[in-house]
């Protein structure tokens, strides 16, 4: 088995601030994903990466940057936090293909004051 660790668990930021979320996996999976979860809107893909140093934009990439410097880690940066923004960011990984099971971390809960 393996685990996905997301840090921090809770993140409080100020409007306009740049915020970074981190994700580590020990499954040795090739592909990693960042999804945003909003109440009533389900999960929307922000970025994914099929291998080290690869980045692919999802449906919601505007306002975000991502980085995959190692196979085991994938970070997400909110480039300018929006006032009153509240969401949960979920990191996931899978072996190579999207048809395979996704394994999720517990999430980072973001609040912007």
């Amino acid at each position, binding site marked *: 088995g393996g685990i*996905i660790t997301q840090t921090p668990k809770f993140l409080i930021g100020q409007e306009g601030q740049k915020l970074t979320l981190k994700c580590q996996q020990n499954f040795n999976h090739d592909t990693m994903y960042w999804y945003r979860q909003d109440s009533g809107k389900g999960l929307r893909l922000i970025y994914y990466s099929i291998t080290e140093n690869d980045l692919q934009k999802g449906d919601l990439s505007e306002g975000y940057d991502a980085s995959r410097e190692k196979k085991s880690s994938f970070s997400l940066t909110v480039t300018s936090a929006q006032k009153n923004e509240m969401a949960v960011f*979920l990191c*996931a990984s899978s072996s190579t293909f*999207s048809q395979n099971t*996704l394994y999720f971390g517990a*999430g980072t809960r973001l609040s912007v004051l």
Partner: protein
Amino acid sequence: AQSVTQPDARVTVSEGASLQLRCKYSYSGTPYLFWYVQYPRQGLQLLLKYYSGDPVVQGVNGFEAEFSKSNSSFHLRKASVHWSDSAVYFCALSSNSGTYQRFGTGTKLQVVP
């Protein structure tokens, strides 16, 4: 275009009763379909998945789902729910050449005594 619709945002059932959570998809080819469950303050966990073959697939904890190509549906069922089944359930879709899974908006299940 691919999409997943979960028409019921909330479902309440009595403990011991049967359950059906609905999922409709839009995709012209043969889809890969998934059901995930999310318990409070946790990431998503796979319940079951369908690729091909028998349209009724069995999952963990007594859950099953039935694929219907004619109805573009993949409904989740359980014969007798337990209070511990209270959670949010997500249906997801991937194509055979897809690069990531698309999720529905989720159905929050509440099991009452």
